[in-house]
């Protein structure tokens, strides 16, 4: 019968219309600003820098300014300047740190390639998405201070990944300590060994921190 297809279609529409009032599966709208969406753990938007200690964020950055992410970033939105001096990192080893670390979030496309290539677990993906500003340039250019967030924050947004990273870093640190201990033992056993190689290290340690 001509028109039966249309009637069938109207029936479907009516079912959906009525269903949207009492069937939660058909009621899919979220009242957004009042009700926030539940983001999946894997959700990513814009990178941030991880620091180990929230009380001293810039002093405990994991980043050593190796500039790998700057080189690999497809839209070239990362800008890094290395420091001239060195600061001890979490394990106490003196490391270069980023004197300037800036990400232009108006260019960043949240592809997370910087996270994948980072050998130090220093840069991770954030979950912010309400980042609208009225200033196109300055407000969207995030500097080192704005980018740095503590490891505890990383744990709240990506708990699984953060736990993995922490376990890996702890294992690395333990292995390094073990190696240092074995080396120290070997050194103690061979007191006749020439002391020359150790001298420059000792000398460097004596240089004042506030060199620049």
């Amino acid at each position, binding site marked *: 019968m*001509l*028109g*039966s*297809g*249309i009637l*069938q*279609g109207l*029936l*479907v*529409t009516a079912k*959906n219309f009525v269903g949207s009032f009492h069937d939660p599966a058909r009621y*899919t709208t979220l009242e957004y600003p009042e009700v926030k969406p539940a983001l*999946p*753990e*894997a*959700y*990513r938007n814009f990178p941030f820098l991880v620091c180990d200690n929230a009380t001293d964020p810039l002093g405990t950055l994991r980043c050593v300014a190796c500039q*790998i992410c700057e080189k*690999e*970033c*497809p839209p070239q939105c990362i800008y890094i300047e290395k420091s001239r001096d060195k600061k001890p990192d979490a394990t106490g080893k003196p490391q270069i740190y980023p004197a300037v670390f800036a990400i232009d979030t108006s260019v960043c*496309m*949240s*592809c*997370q*390639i910087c996270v*994948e*290539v980072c050998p130090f677990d220093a840069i991770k*993906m954030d979950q912010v998405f309400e980042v609208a500003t009225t200033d196109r340039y300055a407000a969207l250019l995030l500097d080192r201070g704005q980018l740095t967030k503590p490891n505890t924050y990383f744990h709240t947004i990506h708990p699984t990944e953060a736990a993995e990273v922490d376990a890996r870093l702890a294992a690395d640190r333990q292995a390094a300590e073990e190696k240092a201990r074995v080396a120290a033992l070997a050194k103690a056993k061979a007191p006749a060994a020439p002391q020359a190689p150790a001298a420059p290290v000792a000398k460097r340690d004596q240089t004042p921190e506030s060199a620049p």
Partner: protein
Amino acid sequence: MNATPLANPSSGAHVRSVPGDLPGDLMEVSMGPHHPSTHGVFRMIVTLDGETIVRLKPVFGYLHRNHEKLAENTSYLGSMPYTDRLDYLNSMTNNWAYARAVEQLAGIAVPERAEYVRVILAELTRLLNHTCLAGFLMQDCGCSGTPLMYAFREREKILDLFESLSGSRMMCNYQRFGGCRVDPSAAWLAAAQQLVDGYGPFLDEFEALLTGNEILLARTQGVGRLSAALAINAGVTGPMLRATGVNYDLRKVDGYGVYPRFQFRIPLGEHGDVYDRYMIRILEMRESLAILRQALAGLPAGPIMNPAAKLRGFRPKAGEAYGRIEGPKGEIGFHLVSDGGPNPWRYHVRAPSFINLTILEDLCLGHTVADAVIILGSIDIVLGEVDR
């Protein structure tokens, strides 16, 4: 239908003509670039005799950003997120096509689990694309809103799956050379299974809404007929080609990935008109569901990445490769030329919706402007891919 096509403008001439150029009382209409029916910034210069189209010239390039030049200045890995932005509905298949081309270029093996996951994601993408296309096509028919909203409701469920796996709804950046980035968890696979189980009933409902609708039949049947010979010669691929009755699906012909292990049928059309193109996509979705069920059931354990594959400092030896897969819109291929450096010497995208537009004028001649809108809708273009 008695209109004779006008001769092509001479080589090098601009398409846009002054009124004096047109014989008789022909009229020239510029549809687009800002027009809701052109699915983006696409322009058609239509010459009309009354309401009948006698010439139609597509104008491209409003979204051109020279994707290929960008890729020549980026590492092989760095181009992967850019492929998401070609056909932004189908980032997973774009990723796969690019990864496949690089894997052919460098001879990288892919673990079995990754091949299965790729199939699962590609078929989910096909569901997503075809659902959207059906919704948009109805929108183009003048059926404002309802089918499109139903389609988008289901699409959002697939996008939620993509988001919980890759971190992003549409710009997934998920595949890597030699595998995939993240291993899907058991919870994710259960969610995918649940979606697959619920998709059949949705398709039934969607078809009850549309397939037998008399207005839809009147608008689409016999409109925009494409012959098999022209489709083959013009390089038309994907559902467009199969709607003309040509049995050519790369999943069967090339048998890439693990597709030969699955049982599925290739739906074929008879008339090559808009209705057939719509119907082919609905039927393909049902076959995709069959593939998904088999792939989810047979997913093996094992590594998701080839451990020998390098992420950083990847420099394939000099040579070239053309890798292609069956994307939802047709054959998506990448032609890569390497000179041994870290960046490709030449990177070319074979964009299915761009090449499928070759026959747009042939399909539209003799029809009305309102028909041109649904013919364009049935070709299924995404301007991010057409203009690159």
